[in-house]
């Protein structure tokens, strides 16, 4: 997707089309909101500034940022290799299942042991959920869009089973398990408002993905595979391995996002914890045009919008889907701007 060598085009120049895209979508939705009889200015203020108006708003944004940026990478890494991973949701869910399982089974272990195990449980489970479509692609040439999506549905059924099965919390109204051991909780950076260390993990992953994609030899091979799998294969790159590798890494990262939700936020397995992270992750990945450097910034922006959206629904009764339409429009405009630039 991107050419990665030493030089980069002027940052201002590459930022401009995004700015236009955001403005255009806000105008479009603004008109719609106005037509429906709501206060446009108040709506915009709420969407854009809730994150910055209070410490709670800001930490909420950072908390949202963590799974979003990880889901985005789970999409962009296979994208670099030319493959579409739509399974981040299922991979997150099984990651959460893996993490909770470890956290419940080894309930009494101290943090120094339990926490890494919990996270590892999520990573491995997610990696397996990415390996399956990867293997099906490798061995049978089955389109990964289909297999990753289908596995999402399998994961939905699976989490429902586990959250209503042997580990279920009988006091909860919604399918939920009993909590994991306290050793599995992610330490908090701030207690009030709550912000967990998953943020550091997410940032670490971002740096890692960036270095991997742009500087490592394997990263080059992955990018070459995505650029032209046939030519890459002719010149010695083991293309099929690249496909599997990218899906496994993606699954692992998505699984990690699930583990972080369990270890940092819920401290148990709750059905529905995957929220709308997948779709937003894909939107982020596409807006960022697959560029690993742009992903965290776009992810943060989307997190701001999401926090603003819930606030807007709470205070102004405007449905959150409005903001979703904004996000979809931003994507559309960003894609269009690439076309315009071509002319």
């Amino acid at each position, binding site marked *: 997707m991107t050419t990665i060598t030493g030089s980069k085009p002027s940052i201002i120049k590459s930022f401009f089309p995004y700015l236009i895209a955001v403005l255009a979508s806000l105008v479009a939705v603004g008109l719609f909101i106005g037509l429906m009889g709501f206060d446009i200015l108040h709506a915009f203020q709420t969407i854009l500034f809730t994150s910055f108006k209070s410490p709670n708003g800001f930490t909420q944004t950072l908390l949202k940022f963590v799974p979003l940026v990880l889901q985005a990478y789970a999409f962009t890494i296979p994208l670099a290799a030319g493959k579409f991973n739509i399974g981040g949701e299922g991979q997150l869910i099984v990651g959460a299942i893996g993490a909770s399982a470890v956290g419940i089974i080894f309930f009494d272990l101290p943090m120094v042991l339990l926490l890494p195990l919990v996270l590892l449980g999520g990573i491995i489970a997610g990696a397996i959920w990415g390996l399956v479509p990867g293997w099906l692609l490798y061995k049978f040439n089955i*389109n990964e869009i*289909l*297999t990753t999506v*289908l596995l999402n549905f399998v994961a939905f059924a699976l989490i*429902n089973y586990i959250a209503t*099965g042997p580990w279920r919390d009988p006091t909860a109204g919604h399918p939920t398990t009993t909590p994991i051991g306290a050793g599995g909780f992610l330490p908090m950076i701030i207690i009030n408002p709550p912000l967990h260390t998953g943020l550091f993990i997410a940032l670490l992953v971002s740096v890692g993905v960036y270095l991997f994609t742009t500087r490592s030899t394997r990263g080059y091979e992955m990018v070459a595979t995505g650029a032209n799998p046939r030519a890459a294969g002719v010149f010695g790159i083991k293309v099929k391995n690249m496909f599997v590798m990218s899906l496994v890494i993606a699954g692992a990262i998505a699984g990690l996002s699930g583990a972080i939700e369990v270890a940092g936020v819920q401290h148990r397995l709750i059905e529905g914890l995957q929220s709308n992270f997948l779709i937003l992750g894909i939107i982020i990945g596409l807006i960022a045009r697959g560029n690993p450097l742009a992903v965290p910034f776009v992810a943060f922006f989307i997190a701001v919008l999401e926090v603003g959206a819930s606030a807007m629904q709470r205070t102004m009764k405007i449905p959150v889907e409005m903001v979703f339409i904004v996000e979809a429009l931003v994507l559309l405009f960003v*894609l269009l701007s690439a076309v315009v630039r071509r002319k």
Partner: protein
Amino acid sequence: MTDVNIPLILYLKLILLTMVPFVLAGQGTMVGGRAGVFNVAQEGIMLCSASIGFLASYYTGNLGMGILAAMVVGGIFGLALAYFTTTLKMDQFVIGLALFFVGLGLSTLLPKLLIGVTMTPPLIPTLNNIPIPLLSEIPYIGEVFFNQNILVYVSVLLSIFLWWGLYKTSFGLSLRSTGESPQASDSLGINVTFMRYLASIVGGALIGLAGVYLPMVYTGTFTEGMVKGRGWLAIALTFFGGWKPLNILIGALFFSGVEILAYKVQITALGIPYQFLLMLPYLATIFVMIFTFRKPTVPQFLGQNYDREKRSL
């Protein structure tokens, strides 16, 4: 009639009933694909048309308006897909995903805006069965095949019509050629752009029809996420059917058979937790695809955009 046969007849009747969204969405995907346009937005289109079709029926009191609205919505998505890919030459998968998001968002936004959140869901009447005179009175077979709602009949007739259209008319030959080699078609004077737009719009309308079937036949109302992956399954079905209309019809029977089986086994309660039975359609599809992708018969130019002035080397 003995007691044993009644459940079997009901079972077979249900299969035909449930195959409709698969057939319609599958044929819709196939039609677009035959011109080289690979639609992956089915899930979003079906959700959106289910939502809008339901709302149209609810407010006009007329199921026919709902069907019309759904097909128009689907057609618009098809038009958008054709425009962004054929005219603006953007990546078909990426646009498909973007349209999926738009459809998804609109499908939940519109009911919330128009109806709001209510305790009891608003309902529309469901489609009645239309028994075909004489034929529906044949014992057993008549009940299964000739006493169904109109869209069941439409699905079957549509499939046959598409087979005839694609393979027995010169228009069909031209359409197929644009999906195999637009360069060849273009050089012989065939309007590739027109074919792509037409196929994508018609395909989208069929997918829209598949979507509105769900509220109109299953539940009588629209619920979020009610498509439950059938849009994605339709893509698998199209590959499974080799992009051929009659094979897609037969494949749809298989897909719906598995879906009904999951429910049937639930009722008989074999001791397997029912969640695992819910997984059945999806796992079965994955399994089936192992054989499909061995030697897929796919239109050669599927998923790619054609640019006449692109200089080959």
